[in-house]
């Protein structure tokens, strides 16, 4: 089972690249030129988020080293233990729907502290990959058409997030 999961996971990216490159060649596109053109866009993305990352890594790193996160976790630990929720993941689960860049900082922090390939590290990775910055998305989409009455969108989107986080945890427990 684990071998199969690893196989599919490892196959996904190479297969997608292979299909795209072959497709481009068959349709007689300048594959390499287009690749370079897109890669330049990639630089812009990273440069754009770099200052945000510095600021948020500072905030998250000092929250941990000062001991504040430990205290917060101690406070909610009894509650989390009842539902068998891994306490180490809690800061990520709370921040994920609110801010994309700060959840990157928290996830990186968790992976560094518990090991990137440990069960907790993999859980953090899967949660990051499977969920979105819900509140930000709702705000951008609603305000673009100047709507303030959002009806049930928040409940629906947060349900998706909660299910996503819980499934991530269960899948990772099952795999390791």
């Amino acid at each position, binding site marked *: 089972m684990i071998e199969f999961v690893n196989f599919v996971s*490892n196959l996904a990216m190479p297969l997608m690249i292979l*299909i795209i490159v072959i497709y481009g060649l068959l349709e007689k*596109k300048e594959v390499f030129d287009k*690749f370079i053109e897109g890669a330049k866009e990639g630089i812009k993305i990273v440069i754009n988020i770099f200052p945000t990352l510095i600021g948020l890594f500072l905030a998250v790193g*000092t929250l941990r080293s*000062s001991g504040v996160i430990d205290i917060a976790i101690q406070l909610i630990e009894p509650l989390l233990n009842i539902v068998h929720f891994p306490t180490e993941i809690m800061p990520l689960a709370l921040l994920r729907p609110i801010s994309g860049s700060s959840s990157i900082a928290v996830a990186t922090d968790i992976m560094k502290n518990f090991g990137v390939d440990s069960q907790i590290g993999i859980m953090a990775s899967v949660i990051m990959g499977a969920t979105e910055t819900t509140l930000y998305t709702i705000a951008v989409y609603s305000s673009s*058409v100047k709507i303030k009455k959002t009806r049930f969108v928040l409940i629906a989107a947060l349900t998706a997030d909660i299910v996503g986080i819980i*499934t991530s945890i269960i*899948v990772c427990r099952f795999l390791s």
Partner: protein
Amino acid sequence: MLNLVWPIFIIISFSYAIFSGNLQNLNSSIFESIESAVNLSITMLGTMCLWSGIINVAQNTSIIQVINKLLKPIIKFLFPEIKGNPKAQDEISMNMVANILGLGNAATPLGLKAMESLQKENKNKKELSNSMIMLIVLNTASIQLIPTTIIAIRSSLGSENPTSIIFPVWIATICAGVAGISVTKLFMKYTNKREKL
């Protein structure tokens, strides 16, 4: 949002560290944090450039149209209220393609265009319509084939197998997406009934 959260984080952790005499740790963690942000960005630069390049190749081929066609029946099921609006259907489909391929930067403008078209059909311009809510839920569900950012982070931290998370991510995303769509559909049924009464 961050204009409030960021200063609160800084104030809480710095003042707690000062009062608990944890100053040495605080100082070293300031520089460690900055360093790891730099390290992450440098590794991310590679993955992001590679992936943006590959996706740009895809954008210039007919793969986009192929996926578009595959999505048509799904869109008909999710957005029954926009049957007579092919323009909105196309925009929603392009938004989904961009999401699936992990083109966050392209997905948002396409999604916002679709919101505009949906607003034209919206009966009550001050409230989100059912189709708008479905579109937003789909965009918050993060349905993507390759979670590039997290793979970049994992490889920057020296993971032995950075891509091992792809399949688990698919399972979790699909569950999240199905949950979001089901809740939305349920609410739609309930509110439609109430309107008829």
